C-alpha cells in the first residue's frame, strides 16, 4: 500500500478523527463551531487536491490494483469536497434542530465523504462495495439524525431497508461477475471484455451491479426512495444525498460501463436510453403536484439523474464529459437551493413558506430564483450549458442511430415540463401580495459566503464553459468507448 496515493482520503478521515477528539473537550455551547473547523479543513484538502504531488503524474494505480488515482477520480473528489464544505456550513445553521450529537454529525458527514472519495477511485468491485457501504452506513445515521422527529426516523428506516436491498442486489451482481470472470478488477475485466460479453452469467451480474448503482443515482427502476428520504432527512443531509451520493453513483456507473465492461456498453445502449427517457419523464411528471420543497427537489433529482443518464447513454466521450460538467453545475445549484431551504423552511417545508421571501431576505430570494432557473436549464446559468452539452452528445450519436433523436426530443419535453414546477417555486416567492410572515430572515456570514460561491459557480459554469469542460474532457480519457 502506498499511503501517498490515499493522501486525500486519509486527510478526510484524519480530520474526522481529530474532530471526534476535539469534540470531547468542547463545551456544549461551542460544539457547532466544529463545523467551521471541518469546513476550513475541507477547504485545505480541496486546495491540496490541486497541488502537484496529488494532481501530477496521473493516473496511478495502487493497493493491488484496487485503487486508481486518475483525472476522473480527482474531478469527482473535488465535487465531493465542495459539496461536503457546503453541507457542514449548512449543518451549523441547522444545529438548533438537532437534539444531540452536533459534533458527531460533522464526523459522520466526513466519513460519508471518505466513502464517496474511495468510490471515485474504485478500480475493483470489492472496493466499490466497501466504498458504497461506508457511504450508506454513514447516511443511515445522518438521515435519521433528528431523532425527535417522526419524519426523519421514517425516512431513516426507508433508506435503511431500500438501501439494504439495493446493496444486496449489488453484492449478488458482484458475486456473479466474480463467478463468471474469476476476478473483480476493472482493468482485468475490461481486457477480457469481448470473451465475457457473451457469458450470460456475466451479463446478469453486470446488470444487477447497474441496478444497485441505479439506487445511488435515483434513476428508474430504483428511484422510489428519493422523494420520501429527501423530504424526511435533515436538510443538510438531503443536500449531501442529492449532490454527493448521486455523483458517487455516477462515477461508478461510468467506471463500470466504460472501464470494466466496455464491450458490454454498446449492447446496452437501448437499455440506457430507455432508462434515461423513463427517468426524465417520471421525475418531471411526478414533481408537478408536489407542495413540499424537499420532496419536489427529490423528484427533480430523479429527473436530473435522467438527464445525466443521457450522457451515459450517448456512449461517447463528449457524453461522459457532459455528465461531469453537469454534475459540477448541479452541485452549485443544489447547494444554493438547499441553503435557502435550510434557512427558510424551519417549521414546514411547504412551498407557501416562500411567500414574500424577496422582502424578508432579497439574497435568499435571488439565490433560490437563480437555482431554479439553473435547474430549469435557462441561460446564463450552469444548468443551461450542462443540458446543452448533454443534448449535443446525444445528437452526435443520432448520426449513427436515429433513435437518439427521439431520446433528445424526450429530454426536451422533460425540460419543458420541468419549467412548470421550477417556475412554480419562483412564483411562490414573488407572487403573493399578502404574506403571513414579514420578519426578516437573518443570514449569517458563512451562509452569505456559501451563497455567493454558489451563485458565482452557477454563472461561471453557465458563461465560461472552457476551463471546466477541458478538465472534464481530460478526466474522461480514463474511460474507453
Amino acid at each position, binding site marked *: 500500500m502506498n499511503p501517498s496515493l490515499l493522501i486525500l482520503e486519509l486527510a478526510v478521515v484524519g480530520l474526522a478523527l481529530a474532530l471526534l477528539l476535539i469534540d470531547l473537550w468542547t463545551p456544549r455551547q461551542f460544539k457547532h463551531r466544529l463545523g467551521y473547523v471541518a469546513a476550513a479543513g475541507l477547504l485545505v484538502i480541496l486546495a491540496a487536491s490541486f497541488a502537484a504531488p496529488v494532481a501530477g503524474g496521473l493516473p496511478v494505480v495502487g493497493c493491488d490494483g484496487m485503487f486508481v488515482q486518475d483525472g476522473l477520480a480527482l474531478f469527482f473528489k473535488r465535487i465531493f469536497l465542495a459539496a461536503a464544505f457546503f453541507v457542514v456550513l449548512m449543518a451549523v445553521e441547522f444545529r438548533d434542530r438537532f437534539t444531540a450529537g452536533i459534533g458527531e454529525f460533522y464526523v459522520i458527514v466526513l466519513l460519508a465523504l471518505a466513502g464517496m472519495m474511495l468510490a471515485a477511485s474504485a478500480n475493483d468491485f470489492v472496493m466499490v462495495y466497501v466504498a458504497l457501504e461506508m457511504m450508506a452506513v454513514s447516511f443511515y445515521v445522518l438521515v435519521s439524525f433528528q431523532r425527535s422527529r417522526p419524519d426523519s426516523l421514517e425516512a431513516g428506516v426507508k433508506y435503511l431497508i431500500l438501501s439494504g436491498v439495493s446493496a444486496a442486489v449489488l453484492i449478488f451482481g458482484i458475486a456473479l461477475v466474480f463467478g463468471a470472470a474469476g476476478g473483480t478488477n476493472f482493468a482485468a475485466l475490461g481486457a477480457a471484455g469481448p470473451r465475457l460479453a457473451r457469458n450470460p452469467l456475466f451479463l446478469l451480474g453486470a446488470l444487477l451491479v447497474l441496478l444497485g448503482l441505479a439506487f445511488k443515482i435515483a434513476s428508474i427502476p430504483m428511484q422510489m426512495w428519493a422523494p420520501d428520504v429527501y423530504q424526511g432527512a435533515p436538510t443538510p443531509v438531503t443536500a449531501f444525498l442529492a449532490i454527493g451520493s448521486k455523483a458517487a453513483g455516477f462515477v461508478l456507473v461510468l467506471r463500470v460501463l466504460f472501464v470494466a465492461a466496455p464491450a458490454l456498453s454498446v449492447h446496452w445502449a437501448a437499455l440506457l436510453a430507455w432508462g434515461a427517457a423513463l427517468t426524465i419523464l417520471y421525475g418531471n411528471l411526478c414533481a408537478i403536484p408536489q407542495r413540499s420543497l424537499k420532496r419536489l427537489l427529490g423528484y427533480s433529482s430523479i429527473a436530473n439523474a435522467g438527464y445525466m443518464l443521457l450522457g451515459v447513454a450517448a456512449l461517447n466521450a463528449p457524453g461522459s464529459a457532459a455528465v461531469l460538467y453537469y454534475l459540477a453545475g448541479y452541485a452549485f445549484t443544489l447547494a444554493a437551493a438547499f441553503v435557502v431551504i435550510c434557512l427558510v423552511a424551519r417549521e414546514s417545508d411547504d412551498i407557501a413558506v416562500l411567500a414574500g421571501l424577496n422582502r424578508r431576505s432579497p439574497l435568499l430570494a435571488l439565490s433560490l*430564483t437563480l437555482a431554479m432557473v439553473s435547474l430549469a436549464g435557462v*441561460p446564463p446559468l450552469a444548468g443551461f450549458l450542462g443540458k446543452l452539452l448533454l443534448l449535443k452528445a446525444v*445528437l452526435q450519436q443520432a*448520426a449513427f442511430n436515429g433513435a437518439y433523436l427521439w431520446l433528445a426530443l424526450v429530454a426536451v419535453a422533460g*425540460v419543458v415540463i420541468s419549467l*412548470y414546477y421550477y417556475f412554480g417555486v419562483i412564483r411562490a416567492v414573488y407572487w403573493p401580495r399578502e404574506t403571513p410572515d414579514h420578519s426578516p430572515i437573518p443570514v449569517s456570514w458563512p451562509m452569505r459566503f456559501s451563497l455567493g460561491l454558489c451563485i458565482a459557480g452557477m454563472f461561471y459554469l453557465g458563461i465560461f464553459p472552457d476551463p471546466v469542460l477541458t478538465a472534464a474532457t481530460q478526466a474522461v480519457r480514463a474511460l474507453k468507448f
Partner: protein
Amino acid sequence: MSPLTLIFGLPLVAALLLALVPRNYRFAIRALALLASLISMLVALYIFITFYHAAAAEGFRYVERYAWAKGLGISYHVGADGLNLGLILMGAVVLFAAVCVSWRINTREKEYYILLLLMGGGILGAFASLDLFFFYFFHELALVPAFLLIGIWGHGEDKNYAAYQITLYLSAGALLVLLGLLALYLQLPPPERTFDIVELTRYFKAHPLHSGAEHWIFPLLLFGFGILVSLWPFHTWAPLGYASAPTGAAMIHAGVLKKFGLYGLIRVALPLMPDEAQHWAYVLSVLCLGNIVYCGFVAMRQRDLNLLLGNSSVAHVGFAFLGIASLSLIGLTGTVVIMVAHGFLAALNFALSGYLRDELKTLDMSQMGGLLRQLPFIGTVMIMAMLAGCGLPGFANFFGEMLVLFGNWNRSGAITTLALWGALVIAGVYMLRAIRAIWHGQKDWPGISDAANLWRKLPFALLLAALIVFGCFPRLLTDEIKTSLAPVAQLVEPEAPATLALSDIKGYHP
C-alpha cells in the same frame, strides 16, 4: 469595442447596476434605466446613419470578434448587415419607449426595471450576435423576465395562466431550435466545429447538406422558430400573453422578441438548408394563411382591445411568414421590412392600449366610446396606428406587405389573393370597427387626461415617427436589406435573376 456591444451591453450593465441601487431611490432607478436605454437608442441610431460608410468585412460591419470557448467553437462575434440593422434600431427605440411609458409602475420598481432591461438588452444581443450560441443565449435571457413581468405586474384574471403559457410555449419552441442548431453544428467535421454563423454559412455553401439529417433539422428549426413567432396553429400563447403583460413588457415582447424567430429563419435556416426550404415553402405558406385569415377573424370577434391587438399582431406576422415562404428576394425583403415596421407598430399599439387601460381601468370596447374629445393626442396617434395596421400607404407596414404580396404572386396566386383579402378586408373591418367603438360617440369620461406634456408624448411620437419615416422613405431600409439578402435569395432560388429585385417598383417611393 464595436458600438453593437454598447447597444445591448448598456441595458444589461444598467440592469446589474440597478441591483445595487437601494429600492427607495425611485427617481434614480428610473433615471438610470432611461439613461441606459436612451444612450443605447442613440448608438443604434448612430450606426444606422453611418452604416453605409463603415468598413465592411464579408458583408458585415461594426464587427467585433474573439474566441470565447475554443473547445466548443464558440466565439463572441457581433456584426450588422442589412438584415439585422433595422431590427437593432427598432429594438433599441422600442426599449427606450417601453422604459418611457413605464412611469406608472409604482410597485417594486427596481425589479421591474431590472427585468425590463434584461429582456430588452438580451434580445438586442441576440440580433447583434453572429454566433449561434450567443444568438440563442441572449434570446433565452428574456424567458424568466417575461414570466416574472407578467406574473407580478400583469393584468387580468388570467395572468397566471398567461405567464405559464407564454413560458412553456416559448421554451418548447426555443428547445426545438436548440436541437436544430446543435444538429447543424454537429454536421461539421470535429476539428472545424463552430457556432459562428458566417463560417457555418461558408461551410454549408461549399458542402451542401445532403446527409439526410437536413430532413429533420429543417422542420425542427421551422417549427421551433415558428412557435416563437406564433405561427398558426402554435399562436395561442400570444394574444393572451400580450394582453396580460404590463405595458412595457408587452411592447418589447410583441415588438421585438417576436421577430427573433423570423430573423432566425432568414439568418440560419434558409441559407444553411436552401433545398429543404424549397420543400417546406408550400406548407409554410398554407400555415401562414391560418395566421392571416383565421387570426384575422378571431381578432374581429374580440371585445377586449388588447386581445384584438394581440390577435392582429399574430395576423400580421403571417405576412412575414408569407414573405419567407415566397423564397424570393422581393418577398424576403418585404419580410424584413414588415419585421421592422411591425415592431414599431405593435409596440405603439400596446403602449396606447396600456395608456387607455391606466386611464379607463378597462379595455372592454363595448364600454368605451367618445374618447377622442378628451384624449385628442392619444386618439390621433391610435387612429393612425390602426390605419397603419390595416395597411394604409404612407406607413412602413404597407410597403412591407406590398413587397411580400408581389414576391409571392409567381409562387401561388391563390394564396396571395387570400392573403391580400385578409390584409385589406379583414384587417380593415376590425381596425375600423375598433376606431368607431373607442373614439367616436357621445360618451363622457370624467377624470381622464390626455398625455400631458412632451415627456409623456415622446414615446408615442417616436414610434409613430419611425413608422412614417420608413413608410415614406422605405429605401432607408430596403437598400441595405436587398444587398444582404441577395446571397440568401440566390441560394434558395438559384434560377431567379437577382436583379429583378426592387427595380421594378422603384417608382413607388417619392
